[in-house]
């Protein structure tokens, strides 16, 4: 094993590390969540990371987005991610896609992925991506933040978890986010992703919710069993 991955051992087996080196993921969004997800996945040593975002940095990103810097305002977030990848771990194949994930390009972006990480910033795009992943049979690692709050989950193809999380008509009230909320959420997502890709046991149908203001950590069982359409009483 290469020395750069030595400290993975003990927490992961050599066989699991080797398995991760064969995996391909899409990180949908290179903002607050995406920047940290990319960093964590690069250092773990995946096979291929695709990173998609059509946005460019602006000053309001600087309070929380790892890839942003005052000297990079106006620069493509996806291109900044590619530069970071080349610096941090050039062994990982990195495909930067300077496009927003849309109904039109999602099929192409997720094709061949072992998992997709949701780092988007709005509910319609999230539900669209969930639908595309379900159709393609690819697990989606959900993550979302607001202010002091973060949530994460594994959505399996066809389980309808994302639709359960975002009840019809639910609307985001605030765009607030603090420096520590995205890395906290990205860590939850990455841990779920590693467990899934390394073949460890995972619990599905559950949403992990953290309110860092009150230090409340909740696990909400939204789906009783895999595949069972959900959650309603009786």
């Amino acid at each position: 094993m290469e020395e750069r991955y030595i400290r993975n051992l003990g927490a992961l087996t050599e066989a699991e590390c080797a398995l991760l080196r064969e995996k391909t993921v899409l990180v949908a969004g290179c903002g607050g969540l995406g920047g940290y997800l990319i960093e964590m996945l690069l250092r773990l040593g995946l096979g291929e990371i695709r990173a998609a975002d059509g946005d460019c940095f602006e000053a309001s990103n600087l309070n929380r987005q790892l890839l942003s810097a005052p000297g990079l305002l106006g620069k493509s977030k996806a291109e900044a991610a590619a530069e970071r990848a080349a610096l941090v771990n050039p062994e990982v194949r990195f495909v930067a896609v300077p496009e927003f994930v849309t109904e039109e390009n999602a099929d192409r972006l997720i094709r061949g992925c072992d998992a997709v990480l949701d780092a988007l910033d709005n509910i319609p795009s999230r539900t669209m991506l969930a639908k595309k992943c379900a159709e393609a049979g690819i697990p989606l690692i959900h993550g979302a933040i607001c202010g002091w709050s973060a949530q994460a989950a594994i959505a399996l193809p066809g389980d309808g978890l994302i639709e359960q999380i975002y009840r019809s008509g639910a609307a985001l009230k605030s765009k607030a986010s603090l420096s520590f909320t995205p890395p906290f959420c990205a860590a939850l997502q990455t841990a779920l992703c590693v467990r899934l890709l390394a073949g460890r046991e995972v619990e599905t149908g559950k949403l992990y919710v953290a309110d860092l203001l009150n230090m409340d950590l909740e696990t909400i069982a939204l789906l009783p069993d895999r595949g069972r359409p959900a959650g309603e009483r009786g």
Partner: protein
Amino acid sequence: MIEVRFFATLRQGRGKIAQVPAEEAAAALDLFRRFDIPAEEVSILLINGFHSKPEDPVKDGDVISLFPPVGGG
């Protein structure tokens, strides 16, 4: 009494937990009104830990948990 538990931003101005006399609410939706919460500001509603709909009935002794939509990235 019905116990209402608020999470994250829904705690602002409401605290963590409230008790409501059972006769004041027939459905979860009545509790939204009681605490002045627009329906679109509740993404997940649990009744006694089960994922539920706003129009589902509530009764004495129930514990209602309300979570706001979290969707930023």
